[in-house]
């Protein structure tokens, strides 16, 4: 599913940027990232790709698609917060970095600014 690959790359780029910042601050996130975050990010990419496809064909309304993507963003937040050794502020910066990447990937796929 090529859309999910694009979204996964975007999510991973966001996660790497955040993890690099945390790593520079002395936090080692490798264990949690490899065991827990990466498999779940892949899962989220597939789910978001599925939401976009169903929205495109009219199976999901705007409200449904936005509510589901918002829920996936919540899931991203949970994943980041699960990583040990992060301050709440650092976690929020990583979350925002990933969500910005996700929104950009979704908007690029749809061809208009569906997500702000």
């Amino acid at each position, binding site marked *: *599913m090529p859309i*999910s690959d694009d979204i996964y790359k975007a999510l991973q780029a966001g996660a790497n940027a955040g993890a690099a910042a945390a790593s520079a601050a*002395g*936090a080692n996130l490798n264990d949690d990232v490899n*065991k*827990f975050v990466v498999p*779940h990010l892949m*899962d*989220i990419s*597939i*789910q978001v790709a*599925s*939401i976009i496809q*169903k929205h495109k064909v009219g*199976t*999901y*309304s705007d*409200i*449904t698609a*936005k*509510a*589901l993507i*918002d*829920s*996936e*963003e*919540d*899931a991203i*937040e*949970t*994943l980041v*917060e*699960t990583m*040990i*050794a*992060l*301050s*709440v*502020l650092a*976690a*929020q*910066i990583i*979350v*925002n970095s990933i*969500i910005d990447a996700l929104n950009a990937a979704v908007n690029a796929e749809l061809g208009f600014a569906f997500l702000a």
Partner: protein
Amino acid sequence: MSTHWTKFAITAVSTLTLAACHMQWVSPYSADLQKRATDMLSEVVTWEAHMRSVAGTVAADPRHPDVQAQLAKWQGEIEAMSEIEIGIDPGSTSCDAFLQSISKGVGQLELTLQKEVSILSSDMNSYTHCETLPSIFTKMMVQVSGGIKNKENKESVGIPKELNKGDDKVGVPIILEQQCKIPWLEDDYFTQMKEGKATAGSPLPARPQSNSATQRVPSTNEEADIKNRCLNALTQTPGTSHSTIVDSLITDLDAIIYREGRQAPVASK
């Protein structure tokens, strides 16, 4: 002189508080919390399969008493898990708020503070983290009750409003309302169903029965459309183990189980 002593006093108090925060850095392992999360995960997966089997019928409508009862039951379970977490780690949220406030408010003192902390304990270099598990319960509650993602909550722990994203309605009830609500049935039909359940065995109905359920006969296309829409929300997404509607909830439960597993004593893993 008095300024010097004031700074010293603040530093001493802050250092001790940070030490307390460090002690609560990761909340203690709770076998009860881990078991409850595992049980709820099993329930969510079972419910999803059941809903898929009844997609497009009254039984999958968000107004159906069984659907509402299941969501209400999960609200109770989440509340119970949240209470367990607060019970075993009562200082978790205030610890985060404290750390944020000192990092913003005391300025130069923070540098002194870091120095003091490093002198007191060489392994306290991660002292800026406190347990953040309680926010998972807030998100799970929104998922099962339907609601608006709240930007204001996080300001209490020092995160600026502009760093928070999202203010749309989310959650399982919202998706069911959009995808599985049967448009030709009035609310009254489900009210009667609830009353029928509540008064089962009673010699008289709670009120005179109306015929709202049979007022409009849906076309075959309408029935096929609602079934297709509902099934799409509940069908397992290829490449994953569940549907999108419960994905966030399952991730939250996985996170609790993972965190508890990480903290579990070696013998109990």
